[in-house]
């Protein structure tokens, strides 16, 4: 436990040290959402219609952006091999690292999304649906993405694999999420969609850490 706590603290303070880099997904997110009205035209109805899709796509892209860095530095400077040799259960350690990543680079997106939802003229129920789906849905991206990143950290070529692994997860996620927001815009229930996303989340939470740990061990060979 002590070891995991130390890892948590260290990763958080590393994140703080490199906070400029951490801003990246956030700025990227803001960028997307600023550029869209400029590119698409500022018509409130159009914006409202495409708004949830834009925010979700932007969130997915931003989370991809930082993901590659998740194990790269640790692999290159040898911290990863020291972690593997430390006796801390590797799956748990992987989970901690993914958690820190989510906390520092995705949670901020969710926190500022009300502001952006305003810009895109979303209504309040739509906004709440958006936040709920983001809160449950984005950890899935981080968890599954981390498997791909772990598999390729030694090879230095994560790109394709990352996309291939993530695509089958993205599509249902996006469909359920936007359908939830749509239901909300029509004042309907959307707990069904939330439940499905929640199930996906629990499933990946249970299995992904072991896959990540295995991938990291393989990277050392």
């Amino acid at each position: 436990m002590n070891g995991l706590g130390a890892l948590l603290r260290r990763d958080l303070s590393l994140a703080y040290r490199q906070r400029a880099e951490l801003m990246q997904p956030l700025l990227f997110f803001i960028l997307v959402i600023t550029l869209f009205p400029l590119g698409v035209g500022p018509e409130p109805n159009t914006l409202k219609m495409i708004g949830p899709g834009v925010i979700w796509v932007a969130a997915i892209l931003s989370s991809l952006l930082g993901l590659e860095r998740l194990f790269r530095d640790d692999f290159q400077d040898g911290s990863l091999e020291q972690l593997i040799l430390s006796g801390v259960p590797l799956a748990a350690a992987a989970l901690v690292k993914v958690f820190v990543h989510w906390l520092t680079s995705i949670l901020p997106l969710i926190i500022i999304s009300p502001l952006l939802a305003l810009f895109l003229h979303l209504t309040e129920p739509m906004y709440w649906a958006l936040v709920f789906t983001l809160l449950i849905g984005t950890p899935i991206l981080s968890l599954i993405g981390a498997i791909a990143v772990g598999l390729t950290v030694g090879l230095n070529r994560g790109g394709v694999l990352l996309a291939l692994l993530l695509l089958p997860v993205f599509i249902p996620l996006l469909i359920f999420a936007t359908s939830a927001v749509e239901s909300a815009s029509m004042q309907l229930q959307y707990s069904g969609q939330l439940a499905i996303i929640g199930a996906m989340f629990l499933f990946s939470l249970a299995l992904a850490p072991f896959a990540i740990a295995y991938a990291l061990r393989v990277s050392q060979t």
Partner: protein
Amino acid sequence: MAVLSTQNLSVIKRDRLLFDQVNLSVDSGSLLYVKGPNGAGKTSLLRVLTGLVEPESGIVFYQDKKIQKCGEDYATNLVYFGHKLGVSGSLSAVENLQYWCDSHQVKVDTNTIYQTLEKLNLVGLEDIPVASLSAGQQRRTALARLWLKADAKLWILDEPFTALDVQGINVLSDKLIDYLSKGGAVIITSHQLLELDYPTQELTLEYRI
């Protein structure tokens, strides 16, 4: 009971057999010096001994138990120091060492870390990012682990003398002798002649094409 021993180890890299049938055994208080030219497979051997890499065939035993079966027991009794330092450049020396100790279940307080860094001639550099230290100073930072985890049963050191100046080499050599005479076991590689005043077991790997 040997601290570490192996049975018929062999390792293949890129279809090339680096070595096979390596049987070694390191007891408490003894020093194994792995020699060999560049590319002979010293680093590969050491990484197999730590368990980071699976050998092609053969078994590594820690206290007569397969290392895969030992779980945390082996981890808490081992220090591995490889070509890569395992310190992150954006954290300071103290932060790096504090994290390393915590994650390796070593109990130290910050004072001890400062004192260790003082022994290693890093006074005044404890709190700046490691990336802005000189090459030798970065390695000293990583080597401080040997002082902090001196109750481990086994040290596996891959070229620990690299980039150290004469004073650094002396400090480290003294530490090694001190550790060995207190019953520790050391497996070491070095291209600089190892001039330790201590009985040395040697293992020479050849460079096979």
